[in-house]
Each structure stands twice: as C-alpha cells, then as structure tokens.
C-alpha cells in the first residue's frame, strides 16, 4: 500500500473521477450488496444507486467469523472492469475537508472507490502533511446514517424537481422585487466558488441581503483586530521565527483551524538541543490549555484581569500611556520573567492574545508588539477573502422583526442551535413567509425551516476553500454522492437559475477564470497537488491604534468564558462518534461537556468532579456537572460550546448542556455570572481517573547538563538468552517535548485500525478501546501545576510479560520485535492484560461492532480485521502498513527504506513527536533518537525492554518554570 509520503507522480485527479464514474455506472455488486447490506434496500432509488457505487467489488468485511468450515459464497466480478481499478489496491486522492469554512488539505485513501482514511496532504503549504482530529474523523461523517438523504418540505420528502419548481417561483418574485425581502444566511465559508456565486446572486438581485453567522470562527474572530488596528486582519503569528512567545490566554496550539499550522511552526521553533535553547513560551491564561501545558512559565489569571496583565506588559515594555496596573505578586513575578525574556530576544519575541479575548487586551498587545518590534512576526494579512460585508445574525433578526424579510435561505449554518438564546432566533424564523435550510444534516434549523435541501459531504463534493494561510484548495470528490444530495454550488446554481449543472462545473468556471489559458493542464496539476498556486498579496502595513481601550468596570460575579469544544468544536461534529469518544485533552472527558472551575473555587463552593451546578448569566441559566481543573484561575468558570443538541442525530443528541443558551450577544466569549451548587451529581465518562503523577517519573524532565553524554542503548540484565532479530527491528520514539496532547494520533489510530466506539456507558466503567491513550499528568501545586502529555501505545516489549501469560499462543513475538496479537486465536482469558505493566491492551467485553447493516462498516480499513466479542486487541505498530512495505520491498528485492513505513499516529502528528522505524539500521531517524541524551524507557526497572521509548521533556531553564 503506497502512503501519501510516496505519492505516484502521474496526475491523480482525472484518473480518480473517470474511475468513479465507471464504478458508479456499474451495478455489478447489487446482488452482493443486498446480501451484505440490507440497509441498501431501504434507501431511495438514487441513494441506493449511489450506495452501490460506494461498495467496491472486493469490499471485504473482515470479521472473526471463526475458523469453522468456510462457506461457498457468491463472487461477483465486474461486467466491464473500469480502467485502472485493481481490486484490492488503494488509491489516493488529494482533496480537502473543511473546519470553520477553512480548508484542511488531505490525501484520501480509498479502496474500490470507498474512502477509508484521510491523511494530511504533504504537498500543501499550509499543513505540510500534518493533521488534526477533525481531519481524521471527517471520513466517518461521510458514512453517518443520520445525514439528510433527500430534500424535504415540512418533514415530507420531496424530489429535487419539486425544489427546482419552487425556486423557479421564488426567482420570478425576486426578479420583480430585485430581491427585496430575500435574506441569505451563510455559515463561515472561504470557498471562492461560493463567493463568486453569491456575488452573482447579489448582482442579479441587488436588494437581496447577505448575512453571516459562524458560531465560533468567521468574521467575529476578527473583531479584536478591528479594535487594535482599526481594520479587520487575519493574524498568522510566525512562530517559526520566534525565540520568545508571550501568550495572553491565546491557546494557539489548541483545537481549531489554526492548530495544525501553528503546531508545525511552534514545534519547528521549539526544537531544543543541549546547546540551542529553542522557543520559550510564557503563558498567562484563565483556563488551562494545551498551550499552557507546553509553557516555560505559566500563570493563572482570571479572564477579566487578562487586560491588566497586558497593560502591565505594555508598561514594562515602555509603551506610551501604559500605567502600571496593580498585579498580584504571582502575576508580577511571571511578568518580570516574560519581559526579561522578551527584552533579551528583541525582534524575535512576540506577544499574542486570544481572538476570544477583550479589545483592551488586544490593543495593549498590539502596541506592545510594536514596542518590541515584533509586528512583522504577526504575519498580519487581509482577512481570507470572504463574503463581502455580510451582515450579522443580530441584524437579520432585527430585519425580520421589521418585516423586511419574506424569504430566508440558510446555507450550511445552524443558527437555531448556535444563536445566542437572547436573539430568539426561532421565533424570528416563524415570522418569515418562506424559509429554506441547506445543509448536510436536517438539524435544529433544518427542522425549523419549511424546506430542507441536503448537501453532499465534502468528500463527495466538487468545491474549493482556502486553508488558514489563504491558499486556495481544490476539493474533489473521492466517491460519488451517497444519497440524493447536491453540492452547495449546485444549490446556488439553482438559485441563479441554472438547472442541475454538473457538480464540477461551478468550480471549474471559477478557476477557468483564475488560471487563464492552458486551463486543463494547470487544472489537472491543481487536482493532483490539491491546491492552486497563487502569488500572495503583499502584507498590509499596519499600525496599532493609539487609543487604549478601557473595558467597562466589571460588574461583580464570576468570569464566565465560552470556548469551543476541543473534539466536537461548535457542535457541528456532534454526531461523529469517533470525536465524541475522543478524550478531551485536559480532562480526558468523553461524550459530554463539563463546567470547568479552578481548585480554589471548588474549595470555596465545596465541589468535586461531577457535582451539578447551575450557572446563571443575567436572566438565563444552565446546569451541568463541574470539573475541577488544576491551574484554572480562581474566579473563572469555563463553559464549552457544542453540546446539548436536540437534532444532531442518534449519536449526538441529548449529551451535555447547551452553553449557547447563556452566551450573551454583546459578550460572546467572556461575561459575568454566578454559580450555585445543586446537590445532585453524576459519574463522568472520563478515560483517566487520576491525573497527579504521584512522584513517579513516568514523564521525565531533563536539562542540558543531564544530556551531555549520549545515552547508551538501555539494556536491563536478563536471564533469558538473546533472540536473533530479523533484518528489520521496529521501534518507536515519542518526543514528550513536542507532544501537545492534541489527540490527532488517537483519532488517526481509530480510523486506521477499525477501533470500535463503545459509548459513554462503557467508557464510564473503564472500557474505552483506543489503542493509544494520551496520558495526562500534572505535578506540583494544584493552583499552578506543571502539565504533561504522554502518548502511551503498546510498548512492544522484547521480553513481554503479556505473551508469557497467554495459554493459546494468541500473542507472540515476531522476529522483527513486534508484539503480535492474533484476534482469531484469542479465547479471551485476559491474562495478557493483567500482566501488562502499561495496561495498553483493550478487550472486547461485548460485541462492539456496528450493526451488520450499518453504513459505518464502509469506513473500515479492509486491511485490518474487525474484532468480535471476547477478544483482546492492542496497538500493532500498524502491522498492515509494515507488511505492505515488506511486499513492496520484496517484490523489488530490496530492503525497506527508512521512513517507508509510517504508522498512522506518526503521520498524523502535527509536531512530528512520533518517530517510527528500524532500530537495527544505525542511520535511521529512530536509531538516532534512541541515542539522544533525552532518551529513556518507561518503567525501565521492569526489565521488559520496550521498543516504544520516549525523549524526556526539557526542564525550563533555571529561574523559570
């Protein structure tokens, strides 16, 4: 199996589309699908046809049927074999999925026209092949059975021709009224094609109104820059050029569209050696974040005090008009260090602030950066082209109130759920004569509107979008549409009066204009690379507004801050089971959200994890379980958005509380409120019960002194004779100084290895199945702890206790040093897990497989067995990839090259913290790292000789941390 790393050079795009067309035209496997997939029968005619397209002729549903008599099953060949489809060989397509409207460039792995795995696109300038959890999990969303499958009106299914007819009527009215009373509400989108189409629409109907509402991202993200620089700006801090970064509540390594790019840049700059310090990060934050966990020095500052610290920073950097605020001793000490560091790194020191922060902080930070001469490092750019001067949701509501809106068309947004409750958006919609919702799910808004038009999933779409750095990225389908759905551009085309254009047409039109002559060649190139090379506009020259913004005197009460959820974001991923079961980085919580508070507040209110509290903001309140987060500021309460959904689907409904309910319109990210204990409590579905390291050295810290002498290969004495190794000896090294605990590896592993989802009840009793867990520890004072992340996959011990325990040879050792787990031999004694000192094995206590007729099966990797009830499973070092590499190499009679085998977790890691390879090859990257001074073995004293080892984290330089 070829990995994206070694992509074939021949243009991929055209091959892809033609092959899909032919596959789609081919009813070859109908009979077979009926046998294997009764669900197919339940689809509408179109959906059924497309479902058939989905299934490859060779689609093997691996399971553990058992080793009994193998039956004679039907075998269905093609009638005419499509060109270039070699059954059983995966194909790779460059495309993208979107988050907050930004493109996340991917390489999609497909088997017989069935995407099973997404990896970052290594050629793409923005992400350079790294990925995040949303990118990894997008493929499951494609197979979500709760997706809207056909257009419908007031809950009644209708056909697209009905839709065309209705839109035709609308257009007649609009032409007379020039679009008077037409309101178009969009989610945040950066698609050049969509923008082009909307501009066309506005040109045709000048009086039509365009609104934008993005729950988290979008235009609102730029407000603070308006305050600080007098103009909306896209700031892309160039961390790769920084020596010192002072972050004021800016979780730039946290989940979000910016995460991959930032993490890549940060890790590049962070890379520290014995003699080169690397990037030093200073973090002042109200709510602990992954960024804070990586900081040299971190201080907890209540959200409402952040701007004071900013002012203090400005004051120490001699910014004109910055009075010295009174800071606590703790804050002052931190400030002094930060300032000292900034001074000593002039020109390479940068201060950043959160886009969720207040204007005062933003403006002080802007001026401080000018004083530090760091403005260039901000990487300021004009906002990624967007729907020009779109109005806000609040405007829409008031316009509706004025009766100025007769037709409301909502595209790819879910305001009925994400709109702040005070807006009473639902009532507003009721006042509109005709409302249309266009989206992939018939969600809260879809249910509210008269019409619902289902959209294709990105992986089924022809479209385009800009990545966070503004690079235009082409989205091409990896599979023909699954249900009776249209791309957003086809829908726009309908509004523009074009009847049922080819899906590709609108996108090609956009780029035909842009690419100019010799289009086809350039286009093919773009499809192959996945993006369009454009020259960048020169960065605008910017000046911090000199007027210091002073926030209104805070009314008393606790600081309530709102944050998007790290795994289901603003709620749009709520129906994605992989993401629901992914532990949130700092709490390891799954399947819900908590109200996180600091230890001090917990002490005051006598609260422990799981206690229910009511949060009151102005006249509204919500209640939910609390989580006491070590290191959270004493008066700050953090609410996470995205939960409490009612129409997300079978997976996402009725989980957690809905924070939008108390999110004020005027203070969307930070406000004041109160907290009351309710006396009830609940058990939370967390994957790690205990977070203090208890004085052990699981995560080691070193300073330059410790690492002078490169460590020799660690070998504990052993009674057993050494075993001869094969030509390759696989090993993995994980750099704890680079790991930001983002979970991308876990998500990638889930997708690659068919890891089942077990649901919150099973997680509560401790039966989560992820093969790779990110252990999260803290040390020191709970008020100001140091936090650590440690990915723990199977250690593949050379002298594995687990193997010794198995009575049936179900887990043994390969000559290449891989600890093998053979599911079909396992009888489930669980001795191996009892003996495992690292507890990395996972057991199928029940049959965790999706129902036999569930479309999720299509997401399964055909190269990996789907485990049945009663068998043990665990990390295999992605043995399917190793064996594929062996076959490839053996065919060419050559040894496997270093870097030829890339495990799923490794390829996903945005900071390249995971390195896998052959430890017998002295020149391999992994061998080099095993020789590094920071190299150590987890539980070395147990003498298990793990093949998975770690690089210790760097101690903060003296006088810090």
């Amino acid at each position: 199996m070829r990995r994206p790393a070694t992509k074939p050079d021949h243009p991929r795009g055209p091959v892809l589309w033609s092959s899909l067309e032919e596959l789609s035209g081919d009813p070859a496997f109908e009979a077979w699908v009926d046998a294997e997939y009764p669900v197919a029968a339940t689809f509408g005619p179109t959906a059924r046809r497309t479902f058939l397209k989905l299934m490859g002729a060779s689609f093997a549903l691996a399971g553990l049927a058992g080793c009994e008599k193998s039956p004679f099953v039907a075998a269905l060949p093609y009638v005419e074999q499509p060109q270039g489809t070699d059954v059983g060989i995966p194909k790779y397509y460059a495309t993208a999925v979107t988050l907050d409207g930004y493109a996340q460039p991917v390489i999609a792995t497909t088997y017989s026209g069935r995407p099973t795995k997404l990896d970052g696109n290594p050629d793409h300038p923005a992400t350079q092949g790294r990925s995040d959890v949303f990118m990894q999990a997008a493929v499951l969303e494609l197979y979500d059975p709760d997706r809207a499958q056909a257009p419908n009106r007031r809950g009644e299914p209708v056909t697209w021709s009905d839709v065309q007819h209705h839109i035709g009527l609308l257009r007649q009215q609009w032409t007379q009224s020039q679009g008077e009373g037409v309101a178009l509400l969009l989610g945040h989108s950066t698609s050049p094609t969509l923008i082009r189409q909307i501009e066309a629409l506005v040109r045709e109907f000048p009086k039509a109104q365009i609104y934008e509402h993005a729950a988290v991202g979008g235009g609102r993200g730029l407000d603070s820059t308006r305050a600080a620089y007098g103009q909306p700006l896209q700031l892309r801090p160039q961390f790769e050029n920084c020596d010192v970064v002072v972050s004021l509540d800016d979780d730039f390594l946290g989940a979000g569209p910016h995460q991959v790019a930032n993490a890549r840049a940060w890790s590049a700059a962070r890379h520290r050696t014995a003699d080169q310090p690397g990037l030093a990060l200073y973090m002042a934050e109200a709510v602990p974040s992954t960024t804070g966990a990586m900081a040299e020095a971190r201080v907890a500052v209540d959200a409402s005090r952040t701007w004071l610290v900013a002012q203090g920073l400005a004051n120490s950097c001699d910014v004109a008009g910055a009075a010295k605020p009174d800071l606590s001793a703790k804050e002052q000490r931190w400030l002094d260090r930060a300032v000292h560091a900034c001074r000593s790194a002039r020109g390479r020191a940068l201060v950043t602030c959160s886009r969720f922060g207040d204007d005062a902080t933003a403006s002080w930070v802007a001026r401080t950066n000018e004083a530090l001469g760091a403005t260039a490092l901000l990487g300021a750019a004009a906002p990624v082209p967007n729907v020009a001067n779109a109005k806000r949701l609040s405007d829409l509501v008031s316009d509706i109130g004025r009766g100025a809106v007769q037709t409301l068309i909502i595209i790819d947004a879910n305001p009925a759920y994400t709109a702040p409750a005070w807006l009473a958006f639902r009532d507003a919609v009721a006042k509109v004569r005709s409302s249309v919702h266009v989206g992939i799910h018939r969600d809260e808004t879809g249910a509210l509107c008269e019409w619902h038009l289902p959209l294709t999933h990105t992986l089924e779409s022809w479209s385009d979008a800009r990545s966070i750095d503004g690079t235009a990225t082409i989205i091409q389908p990896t599979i023909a549409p699954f249900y009776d759905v249209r791309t957003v551009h086809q829908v726009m085309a309908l509004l523009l009066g074009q009847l049922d254009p080819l899906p590709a047409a609108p996108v090609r039109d956009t780029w035909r204009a842009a690419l100019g002559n010799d289009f086809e060649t350039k286009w093919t190139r773009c499809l192959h690379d996945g993006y369009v090379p454009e020259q960048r506009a020169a960065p605008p020259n910017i000046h911090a507004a000199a007027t210091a913004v002073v926030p209104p005197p805070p009314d008393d009460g606790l600081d309530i801050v709102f944050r998007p959820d790290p795994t289901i974001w603003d709620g749009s991923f709520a129906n994605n089971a992989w993401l629901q079961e992914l532990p949130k980085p700092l709490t390891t919580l799954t399947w819900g959200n908590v109200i996180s508070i600091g230890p001090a507040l917990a002490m005051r209110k006598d609260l422990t994890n799981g206690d229910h509290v009511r949060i009151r903001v102005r006249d509204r309140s919500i209640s939910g379980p609390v989580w006491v987060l070590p290191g959270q500021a004493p008066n700050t309460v953090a609410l996470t958005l995205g939960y409490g959904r009612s129409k997300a689907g079978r997976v996402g409904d009725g989980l957690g509380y809905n924070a939008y309910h108390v999110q004020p319109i005027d203070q969307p990210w930070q406000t004041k409120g109160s907290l009351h204990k309710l006396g009830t409590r609940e058990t939370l579905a967390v994957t790690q019960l205990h977070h203090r390291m208890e004085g052990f050295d699981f995560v080691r810290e070193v300073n330059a002194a410790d690492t002078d002498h490169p460590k020799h290969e660690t070998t504990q004495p052993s009674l057993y004779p050494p075993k001869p190794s094969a030509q390759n000896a696989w090993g993995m090294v994980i750099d704890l100084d680079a790991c930001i605990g983002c979970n991308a590896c876990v998500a990638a592993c889930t997708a690659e290895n068919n890891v089942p989802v077990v649901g919150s009840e099973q997680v509560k009793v401790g039966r989560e199945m992820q093969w790779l867990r990110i252990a999260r520890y803290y040390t020191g004072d709970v008020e100001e702890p140091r936090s650590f992340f440690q990915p723990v996959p199977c250690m593949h011990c050379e002298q594995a206790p687990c193997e010794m325990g198995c009575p049936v040879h179900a887990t043994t050792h390969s000559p290449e040093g891989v600890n093998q787990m053979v599911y079909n031999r396992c009888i489930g004694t669980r001795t191996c897990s009892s003996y495992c000192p690292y507890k990395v094995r996972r057991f199928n206590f029940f049959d965790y497989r999706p129902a036999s007729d569930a479309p999720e099966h299509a997401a399964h990797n055909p190269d990996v067995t789907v485990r049945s009830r009663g068998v043990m499973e665990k990390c295999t070092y992605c043995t399917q990839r190793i064996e594929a590499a062996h076959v490839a190499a053996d065919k060419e009679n050559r040894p496997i090259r270093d870097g030829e085998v890339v495990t799923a977790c490794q390829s996903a890691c945005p900071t390249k913290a995971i390195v896998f390879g052959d430890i017998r090859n002295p020149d391999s990257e992994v061998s080099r790292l095993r020789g590094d001074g920071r190299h150590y073995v987890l539980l070395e004293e147990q003498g298990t000789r793990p093949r998975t080892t770690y690089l210790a984290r760097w101690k903060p330089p003296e006088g810090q941390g």
Partner: protein
Amino acid sequence: MTDRTADILPQDQSLGRVSDQLTGIPLHFPTRRRWWIAMIIASALLLLLVISTTALFTRGVGIWGINIPVNWAFAIHNYVWWLGIGHAGTLISALLLLTGSEWRNSLNRFAETMTLFAVICAGIYPVLHLGRPWYLYWMFPYPATMGIWPQFRSPLEWDIWAVLTYLTVSLAFWYTGLIPDFAAARDRSRKRGWQIFFGITSLGWRGSAAHWQRWQQAYRVTAGLAVPLVVSVHSEVSLLFAAGQIPGWHSTIFPPYFVLGAAFSGFAVVAIIAIALRSLFALGNLVTDDHLDVLGKVLLACGLMTGYGYLFEVFDALYSGGAHEMRTLSDRLTGAYAWTYWGAIAFNFVPLQGLWWRSVRRSGWMLLSISISVAIGMWLERYMILVTSLYRDFLVSSWGAFTPTFWDWSTYLGTIGLFLVPFLLAIRFIPMISIFETEELLHKEQERPHG
C-alpha cells in the same frame, strides 16, 4: 494426636450398631423434610447460576463489572476461593491418613465429598470467564488443522492441568475409599433398587483378605501422592498471579501463602459441615466434641500460619522498597478497597482467637460461627488480592476501579447452589461417614484396654 484417640469415640457401642446407623442414613433416610427444604433452596441457587450463565454466554463477559485495568475480578477470585475450600478434603483424608491421626475417620468421607464439588465449582469459573468460551478446547494439545498448540509457559495452562488432575485424583481416591462402604450398604439393603445401586457401585466387593491387602496399599500410596498434589495445585494457582509483574502479586511468598490460606478456608468449611451433619443426623456418638476440639486446633494453626503470610506480604513490600510495591501496599491499607483488607483481617483472625479456649473449641455453635467468619474472611482476602493489585498498578494514567454488578453476585451465589445440590444428593445416597474405618477404629479402641 494418637494418644487422644483412646477416647475419641465412645466405646459403649457395638460394631453392628455403628454399621446399621451409618448405612441407615441412605437406606432409611431420617430427616426427609429438612433435607427437602435445603434441596429446594439449593436448586433455586442452581437455577440462578443457569440464568446467569445463559446471560453471560449470550451477551459476553461485559455483563460483569470487569474493565481495563481490573479485567479479572469475581470470576477469578471465586475460582481461587472455591479451590481453596476444595483443599481440606484431600488434606484431611490423605495427610492425616499417612500421619495416622485416627480422628480423621469420622470426617474424611464428607470432607472428600465436599472437596469434589468445591473443585467443580472452582473449575467452571475459568471457563465462564473466557471471552470466547466455545474455544476452550484450544487450551488442550490436539493435532489441529491450524497446526498451532497451547502455550505451556502460561500459568493458565498449568492451572487447567493442575485442576483437572486434582479433580480426577480426588475423585478416584474418594471412590476407592467408598467401595467397602458401598458393599456394607449393599449388604444392609433390602429393597431391590438399593441392592442393585449399591451392588454395582461396590463393584462386588467381598472384603476378602487379599482384597483388603491390595486395597490398603493402593489407598495409602495414592494418599501419599495426593498430599504433594494438594500443595502443588494451589501453588500453581498462586503463580497465576505471582508470575505477573503486577505489584502485590509479584512475590515469592505467594505459593505457601495460598496453600495455607486454602487449608484454612477448607478446614473452616469442613467444620461447618461436620457440625451441620452431626446435628442433622444425630451423629454425636461418631462426630464427638473431641473431633470439634481437634478441628478447632487445626483451624487455629492454619489461621496463624495464614496470618504469617499477611505479615510477610507487608514485610516483603517494605523490604523491597519498590515505589510501586509500597504504593500498592498503601492502597491496600488505606485505598478505596481497604475494607476488603481490614475485612479479611477482622473475619479471619479476630474471632479465630476464641479457639485458644477448649470450651470454645468444643462448643458446636461457637466453632460454627468462627468457621463461617473464616470462610467470609478468606473470600474477602481473595477479593483484596485480585482487585487492590489490579485497580492501581504501575502507570497512574491507567488506574481504574471495580464495582461488581448484579451478574457478578448472581453467578457467585449460583455456584453455591452448584455446590449444595450434588452435596445434598451425596448425603442422601452415600454413607457420609466411613463405616469400615470407624469400625476399625472402634475395634482398636475396645481392644486397647485389654491388649
């Protein structure tokens, strides 16, 4: 002990009366009503086991409270507990036979019977706890089309062989001892059905001198083999834990610790049954206060030795000084499951001290309640050894917790039914006290004064 045997059986009874009395129990069963009540309760429990097992096989081991890290709990700890109980029988009959402690003669028969059914209860657990029990046969070496064999380095594999051997040998030993008594019952029985039943089970035993001679040799040498077997079986069970690296398991004291614990719980249950039977069948003349007295002493001795095991475990942890060992120790003493540790101590050793007094040893009720408390205490000890070691092993990030579910309990109670039903049947149909050995002893004692 032999010096005490002078007055362990009252001598004012003829051989004939003893024989009639004992064969009379199966032949003209005295207490039908109480037996039926017991039987109904036992069957109800057995039914519960059937239900639990059905649920288990249809849905999977997930119906229990186990998880990662505590992926062994009730199944394994009840397995150890039952097997422990199953040790006294063979010890009493074999070891005491060899040491010529004649007081055993009134107890060995039902002690052995108890052993058999306890071992069966233990034996089903390793099957039940499998994720895929229908592949159990993969644990046995047979020429499979897969060309793959069992893994003989695994303590689990050892256990299968150990338990099966123990079961088979105990059964054979028990039956060999029964043959002459079956013959006795055959000769007393008048009903045709009984005659055929005992006629076949006694294999036509005629008590000829030559028979006795060979029988004695076989019986004694088998007893000689049974003793190391008993010791080995529970040592192997302990290796199931000690072979792993988990703190709290990885200790050299485990084999003796487990064997003594096993004998401790076993003798407790023997005492319970002895007292119950003697009151049920008015066997005061054969199971005398002296028997209870001796049982009490043995119980006390085993208890004290087990207590030593506890002490040594603590010492072991402290002496090793390993951070993780210490951690587990403190978890046992103060952690979430400290109640199992202190519970074990309280039930095992506090009432036990009463046995220092002769009067307590000789009072049925006292000994009974102490024995019951010991059985509970040992159950808690197994729980403690399993759960407190697993729920917090090395990596803090993998620490977990365990809460038994309804099915955990129902399966456990069910096995009590599985024990009682066949045991009740046995006392209904089989002479529960060795007739010929009692006669032999009685005769010896009557001879002794004038001989």
